[in-house]
């Protein structure tokens, strides 16, 4: 410390001083042409980075704007789901499905369509320097997890607005109307889990050489419990004779899984963003 450059001690002192002193000291070292006001504002901004909510809303706005302008994820996912229902019709040689079979077809299709969205989630950030820009900003890194998970959740919800009615129209035997209120609860719980796991897995896979391969391979086993819970919960809704309500334990399982993976993703996400 004693052998440091002569210029170092005053700067160090200014750096540890309270904010108003540092702001007051700034104009003295600033070039004469610069007025005090912008320097004050700059010092204030440096001292108080935006909070988590502000960062998340800014990032989320950016995500949704990019998606609205490029239309890269949601239309592709919707089209994929509808095409998959057609494929299921020919593969199973059935005009209508009900019960366990219907729940299975719906959830396999939703899951694979979600994986399309998961695979694309961080590609723009990786290819066009979004990660670097985010890391340069003095903000909490968990904001990226929250914003991306919310963006993926909104993609899933919008895409299901197309996929679920299409399923009711094309394949489902019993009417969708009476199953809908309970189905919405199952969809919401499952979507939260898919969004959380998808964001974590996408962030892990996007910076590897084989990202298109690793993303689905990582995501599928982790999403198996969600498929179990969601398919079991929605099977009684699609029963052809006596439609029931989803068993509470499946909703509870889904909620518990969401909670655990939410906490886990929050804990480990920062480590994926260190360079």
């Amino acid at each position: 410390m004693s052998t440091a450059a002569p210029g170092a001690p005053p700067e160090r002192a200014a750096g540890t001083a309270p904010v108003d002193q540092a702001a007051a000291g700034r104009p003295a070292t600033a070039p004469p042409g610069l007025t005090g006001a912008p320097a004050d504002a700059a010092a204030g901004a440096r001292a108080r980075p935006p909070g988590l909510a502000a960062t998340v809303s800014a990032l989320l706005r950016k995500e949704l704007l990019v998606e609205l302008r490029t239309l890269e994820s949601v239309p592709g996912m919707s089209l994929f789901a509808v095409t998959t229902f057609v494929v299921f019709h020919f593969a199973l040689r059935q005009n209508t499905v009900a019960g366990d079979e219907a729940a299975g077809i719906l959830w396999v299709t939703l899951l694979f369509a979600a994986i399309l969205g998961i695979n694309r989630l961080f590609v723009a950030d990786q290819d066009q320097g979004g990660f670097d820009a985010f890391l340069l900003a003095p903000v909490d890194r968990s904001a990226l997890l929250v914003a991306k998970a919310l963006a993926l959740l909104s993609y899933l919800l919008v895409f299901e607005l197309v996929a679920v009615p299409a399923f009711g129209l094309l394949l489902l035997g019993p009417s969708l109307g009476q199953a809908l209120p309970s189905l919405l609860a199952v969809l919401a719980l499952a979507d939260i889990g898919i969004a959380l796991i998808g964001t974590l897995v996408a962030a892990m896979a996007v910076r590897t050489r084989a990202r298109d391969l690793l993303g689905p391979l990582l995501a599928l086993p982790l999403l198996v419990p969600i498929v179990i819970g969601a398919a079991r919960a929605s099977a009684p809704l699609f029963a052809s004779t006596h439609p029931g309500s989803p068993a509470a334990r499946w909703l509870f399982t889904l909620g518990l899984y969401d909670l655990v993976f939410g906490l886990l993703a929050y804990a480990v996400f920062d480590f994926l963003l260190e360079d």
Partner: protein
Amino acid sequence: MYGRGLRALSFATVVTLCVTLALIFFYAPIEADQGFLQKIFYVHVPMAIVALGGFILGGLFAIQHLRTRDSRWDMRSYVAIHMSLIFGVAVLITGSIWAKASWGHWWVWDEPTLVSFLIIFLLYAIYQPLRFSIEDPERQARYASVFAITAGVFVPLNFIAVRLSTGYVHPRVLGDTSSLPPKMALTFLLALLAIALLFATLCKYEITAKHTRAQLSTLRRRLAGEHSSVYASRGRSAAPRIQPSPVLGRTKV
């Protein structure tokens, strides 16, 4: 050095394994229902328990790696998961044999333990490809640790989910050991100890071998008078990189 205690550990493992095998074949009673075939239980179930324990242990080591940034923890995590995968293959094979012999099918979906184990195995099968496809060694270690923690949490959750989804169709052999006759329970516990010792010994051998190879290549390079780094000749690898040890590593940069 890394090989310390290896001989004693290997000796203990061999002795325990031999005693266990003797107990399995000469001491434990023949089961009335399944006959001689039930003996595979003493190999299959302990291996499954040890493999799952190894996966979770890999996650705990990974937490330690992210906390301390010490690459030795990454190596331990890697070796624990690697060895658990090898044990996992053996578990799936012995499980299939047992299922075929006692239930008539190579694979039974009604058995939640089998299904959970398969899902966990499929998840962990991505561990090596994930490491292999990240070139920067520091980031490889960090991402592998994040994976190991995530997957380690997934292990119990997955068991709960799959267990909930299947009815108890088949009688559960792996309940608690208190339902076993005392002779069987003793043999089972000793088998568990023997397999756990085998796991520990193999892990220690792998770590020792990796470090010895790294030191050997450092010495070779020094002998050849090359001034390149130890890792320069190594291509991409799924295994963690080893820092040269302070004794043998070069002091000049």
